[in-house]
């Protein structure tokens, strides 16, 4: 088992693979409201990302165990999947947000305290290291079920690393 495999086997994505792909850059750059990134590389019996997607951007599952596949043309960045996914494996990234150095991430969040709009938070990568600061733009609870979708302004160069935030006390 090499280091990469070890990391992956402990729950850290190290490269794109089936069920965990990057959106096509051309489309992504100009897509207002952003596109979804799903990181769900294992076959598990689960499909709410598909059944809840209002536009059909998460393609129909042949088998409930399939990894999600995305038709990026159809994704509106609405972040409904972010709110429903029980694996907290869906994220939306809007590259059109702010100036050319910033982007907006819509992240699932189930910890306390709930982040406050306008406040600065730590942005953590896939192993929990703080790699930058971000600014909370909006905090929503789309399904009224205690899973928050937090909109955070982050450095654009870090969108493929940041996967959660931590409230700074």
């Amino acid at each position: 088992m090499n280091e990469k495999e070890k990391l992956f086997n402990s729950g850290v994505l190290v490269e794109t693979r089936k069920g965990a792909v990057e959106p096509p850059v051309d489309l992504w750059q100009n897509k207002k409201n952003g596109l979804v990134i799903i990181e769900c590389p294992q076959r598990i019996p689960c499909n709410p990302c598909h059944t809840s997607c209002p536009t059909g951007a998460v393609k129909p599952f042949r088998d409930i165990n399939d990894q999600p596949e995305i038709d990026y043309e159809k994704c509106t960045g609405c972040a409904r999947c972010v709110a429903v996914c029980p694996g907290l494996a869906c994220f939306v990234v809007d590259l059109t947000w702010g100036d050319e150095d910033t982007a907006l991430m819509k992240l699932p969040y189930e910890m306390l305290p709930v982040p406050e709009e306008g406040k600065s938070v730590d942005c953590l990568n896939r192993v929990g290291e703080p790699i930058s600061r971000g600014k909370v733009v909006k905090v929503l609870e789309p399904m009224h079920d205690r899973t928050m979708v937090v909109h955070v302004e982050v450095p654009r160069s870090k969108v493929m690393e940041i996967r959660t935030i931590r409230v700074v006390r």
Partner: protein
Amino acid sequence: MKGLRQTEVLVIGGGPAGLSASLEAASLGCQVTLVDSDLALGGQLIKQTHKFFGSKDERAGTRGFKISEILLEELDGYKDRVKVHMNCTATGFYREDGVVSCVIGEDEYFRIKPGKIVMATGAQERLLPFPNNHLPGVYGAGAVQTLMNVYGVAPGKRVLMVGAGNIGLIVSYQLMQAGVEIAGIVEAMDRVGGYWVHAAKVRRMGVPIYLRHTIKEALGDRVIAGAMIQEIDDKFQPVGKEIQVDADIICMAVGLTPTCELLWQAGCEMVFVPQLCGHVAQRDLFMRTSHPDIWVAGDAAGIEEASAAMVEGRIAGVGVARSLGKGDSSEHSKRLEEYRRRLADLRGGEVGQKICQGLECCTVNEWGV
């Protein structure tokens, strides 16, 4: 016989499997008695604050305790047919006359003679032996969850989790939600045993997962102060350097095993199936055991998930109704077909493959009765 109660169907255990079996049997016209040792119905579900997987049929994306609430609401519609005894433990099955003894609380005792029985007794936790594991602060994951999610008590400040199956991963996540720090998760295998996405959730909050490691000993004088962990090789022998981890709680999540004492007592044919995590009853496609009046469902039939437990419970419910001649046969077939399809769907993934292998070792087509 004095004080002997009667019921068409006795369901033992009111977790997702037992609740579903009760609902299904009642919906087909059976009179059901449901007993559960706990103070509330719902089994493991009442402790699950996270969102479940599965499909819409199994209420995917809904938190576990909510699923329990939904089942209880449905049960409310069958008040006239389902009699519930809580805080009531089935303590014995008497083979000679098919009577089941039950104790309510600690002193009220009764005997009941059911026509048919569904055993939905769930699972028991396995524990791991290591030096100093008698010290206060060593818990099973079930106890930690009960303290935290049923009674609202944080078990400690900093927890070392042993086991990275779904339970270890989920309980770690729930502890973090309760403001408790996770010092790390120790896992003997070379990958997490639970769903990758559950591991990703705790990793991104900075929790280390020590693959191919085991707990060597607990540290502490009168209470837990930490633990020594160490890497292990292919033969599970300790190699490499020891790491000291500070923690005031060591939480074991090293697996469950089916609760099957009553099945043994009843003389059901039992087999040891590693994929189902212990001894389980042989069953047919209706979840009937080798005893013609006893069905089994849920974790008691093999450790799996609540989603599958609910469907198995439904199948057992149809099974008992069918054998009691309740409901018409086309309705039975229709429901069974649907439930078997759902089970097959749920078991189509990586984890499901293992379950299917296990089931092959303990499933017969139909008993010749």
